[in-house]
């Protein structure tokens, strides 16, 4: 799966939780889930669960800790896909 495919999938996953829609316009690795998209932190846990479902991976607590940007999520997904 290419970087772009992964990022597009992440975008689709986060969309229902985004409170600042403007942040979706420029959706890139630097996009911050909390600051740019204003996803609340309980919903960020939902994002983690949806990512697990979409990519059929398990995100452990240590990985979840650092999942704050699109780029963070992308690296975690890539790492988990590789060791699957």
């Amino acid at each position, binding site marked *: 799966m290419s970087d772009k495919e992964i990022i597009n999938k992440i975008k689709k996953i986060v969309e229902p939780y985004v409170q600042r829609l403007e942040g979706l316009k420029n959706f890139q690795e630097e996009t911050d889930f909390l600051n740019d998209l204003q996803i609340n932190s309980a919903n960020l846990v939902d994002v983690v669960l949806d990512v697990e479902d979409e990519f059929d991976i398990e995100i452990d607590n240590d990985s*979840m800790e650092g999942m704050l940007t699109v780029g963070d999520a992308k690296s975690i997904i890539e790492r988990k896909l590789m060791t699957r």
Partner: protein
Amino acid sequence: MIGNDIIDLKIARAEGKSDDTRFIDKVFTEFERSLILNSQDPELHLWILWSMKEAAYKAHQRIYDLPRKLNPRSYECQYFHQENSGKVSIGSFEYSIDVQTTSEYIHSITSSGALIQMAFFNGQTSRSELLARFLSINSIEMDEIKLYKDFNGVPSIPLKNSPKKLPISLSHHGNFTAFAIPLINS
């Protein structure tokens, strides 16, 4: 030291998280899970513990200049229903939390001193407008109504004619916005 969190129960209750075992596993410890599932109102209990964790997280992050983390399970709660209070421990640190629960919202707060706090109910008013009102009620003067955020994103109020910054904790959920500032510098 200060940290607060508000939950709009109308929105939170609609989430039905107390039936979501995967969510519970990611967020709560074994001990907390038994508190939630054995309570008379698991959904309410779940959100009380969540807001306590958030309040403790904000205080802990501020005191120790910590980078942001999504690690709710590392914060373990004890909740004393009759006293409307609780304790949250993270490693060897412990935070006492006051919890206010109404039919409409939950507000959790921890602080090291006396404090001013408010909860607003207003879906229409912008956050900066609420902040301006909050500051004016408390006779705090700023050059511009804009919060300062440090490199970890922790907010404070740059005071007018002073190099000092006043710590502030703010929380917004659904129709509720809550601000908290310490009266004594802490």
